[in-house]
């Protein structure tokens, strides 16, 4: 079965993503995006829209390019030597790769949560106020404290840490650290939050808390999440995109992807035949 499906993909040279890649009122649009690491191509001709306030999940086998895809959205790939992005990626109609764009401003608008919790070796307070301080979002200490409390509340961490805001963020448990990172990301009021396998280093209870949080956050933010867990994608996302060997195979409402996948590769993956 595996052999057959991979043959099918290779034969399909002019492959077109199946399903509902586009939407009417997109937050972000990607057209004909290719990504290269030096000579190696990691992503082939991806076309997709991300709608406002939606949660879109990226799934696929390891090395399929889903993390690379995510990191093109806030230009974190700039930090990788030899990485090149072709094609057009826009947010609210503005080209993210145009030379006029300010990366600093972009990253303030598109926040990111990483696979491994990476709080700075600072106090909980300094972790959350890091972004507001460098972007000058608060004029007084009172404003700053307000942002601190609001962000920690939104991340569901306030009650747990309100009495030890000045202790190091690295002293928290793994799940708390990850929620601290989410609080840190939303403290600068981004429009989009990118999450790169945010629960892969966490235990099931911490994972459940983060998933709960993602659902709540989707009321205010657009969220793109990469995950290895199909159950997680099914639980939190509105749409699901399936990547295979750098190609975007299928994008459809989550329920449909997991019940009636259109593409045979998607079906093979979600039924566990490979991945």
């Amino acid at each position, binding site marked *: 079965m595996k052999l057959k499906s991979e043959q099918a993909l290779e034969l399909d040279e002019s492959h077109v993503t199946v399903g509902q890649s586009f939407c009417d009122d997109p937050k972000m649009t990607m057209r004909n995006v290719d990504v290269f690491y030096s000579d190696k191509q990691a992503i082939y001709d991806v076309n997709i829209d991300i709608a406002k306030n939606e949660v879109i999940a990226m799934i696929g086998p390891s090395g399929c390019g889903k993390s690379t895809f995510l990191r093109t959205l806030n230009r974190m790939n700039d930090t990788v030597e030899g990485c090149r992005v072709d094609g057009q990626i826009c947010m609210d109609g503005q080209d993210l790769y145009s030379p006029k764009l300010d990366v600093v401003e972009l*990253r303030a608008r598109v926040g990111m949560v*990483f696979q491994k919790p990476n709080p*700075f070796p600072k106090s909980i307070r300094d972790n959350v106020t890091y972004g507001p301080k460098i972007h000058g979002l608060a004029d007084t200490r009172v404003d700053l404290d307000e942002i601190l409390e609001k962000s920690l509340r939104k991340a569901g961490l306030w009650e747990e840490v309100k009495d030890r805001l000045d202790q190091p963020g690295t002293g928290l448990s793994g799940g708390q650290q990850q929620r601290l990172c989410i609080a840190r990301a939303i403290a600068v009021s981004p429009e989009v939050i990118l999450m790169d396998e945010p629960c892969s280093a966490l235990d099931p209870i911490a994972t459940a808390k983060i998933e709960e949080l993602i659902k709540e956050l989707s009321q205010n933010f657009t969220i793109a999440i990469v995950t290895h867990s199909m159950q997680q994608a099914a639980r939190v996302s509105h749409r699901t995109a399936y990547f295979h060997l750098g190609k975007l195979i299928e994008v459809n409402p989550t329920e449909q992807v997991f019940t009636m996948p259109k593409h045979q590769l998607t079906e093979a993956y979600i039924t566990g035949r490979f991945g």
Partner: protein
Amino acid sequence: MQATHLLSLLIVLGSFSFYVSRGRSLALANPLGGIRNLHSLPSYYGLHAALWCTLPATFLLAIWLIFDEIVINAMVMTDLSPELIPSGNASYNLILNKVANIANGILPRESQPSGLLDAADNMLSLNVVSQWSITLLIITLAMFGLAWSSHKLKPDFRARPAVERVMQNLLLACACVAIFTTLGIVFSVLFESIQFFRSVPIYDFVFGLEWSPQTAIREDQVGSSGSFGAIPLFVGTLLVSAVAMFIAVPIGLMSAIYLAEYADSKVRTYAKPALEVLAGIPTVVYGFFAALTVAPFLRDLGASVGLTISSESALAAGGVMGIMIIPFISSLADDVITAVPQSMRDGSLAMGATQSETIRKVVIPAALPGIVGGIMLAISRAIGETMIVVMAAGMAAKLTANPLESVTTVTVQIVTLLTGDQEFDSPKTLAAFALGLMLFTVTLLLNIFALHIVKKYREQYE
């Protein structure tokens, strides 16, 4: 036989035991159906025999070599004829030297008192007895070891753990050599210092403000009572080290940040070794660079802007020392900055911080314990540095905080006190040991402090 011959003999015996025992274990294994029926590989049986054959014998030889001269000397001196019995410690050594010289044929035998000649003959015969007995003992012991090992050689004998244990102890012994050497240095300095503190009170030494170690050689000499206040020297040391750190820390740290964070891999491959070449230049070369190039340049520069800079100044010595220490700091800082996980940088960059904000607010604070540790180690190096200051800082012990004047440091004074002809019981010479002891204590405390800082913050952040 001499010690070197004995050692060669032991090596030969050891190799012989190795091959014999290995062969025997193979012979034992054959009827059983191969070496898999032995507990250990045949080479372990060989090694076991070789170790048993050589190690106890070597150990005995070492002990014998340490003590045989002492014992023989004592025996010769107790057998000395009554009219030559020495009156004090000094004449004891004198007589002993004479006897040894006669015995070795350095002094002619004619015109020596018969008592001395007897003693010399006595010494010669004792030496012969000693050499023959050690040779016999060593060979017996080696043979006994080999026999013991052969006796134990059976298919189920656990030779491998036994050899491993010996190896472990050998490694431990090597580690101990370094530790005991340090202890030896400390004690030798300590005892001489105690002798010094008998003639100069410790309070006057540690807190005294004047340093002029000229003491009267003859009773009737005028005006040179000598004063041993170490404060001016330590102030000079601190001044020179401070100047050095003032130059080395910013430059070293910034070049490390550039290399670790900004430089692409091509620049890094060339720039880093180039910077480390600085560390390979001998300090004496830095010394004449400081004395012949930098110091006159600074003096002329000072003269042109109306400053009086003496031609041997703390500034020149400290400046060149700072240059010397740059690679030390940059290399250590580069290592700790590179060791800060990339996820920290990603986290900060993803918040919309620029690269320099990321470095200032996340990378440097995370790397700070390592950087501070590096700086502390660099400081203790600056304090102990000798050659540059000998050549460029001057000799006059002035109590000053002005880097434009010439100062002297602890290390310079130690060098001047101990070079040339010195009597070893005058406070002037012994002062060098007291200074060494104090310097050692200061750098030791600094190192402990540095290690403590590094440890403390490391625990907190990981």
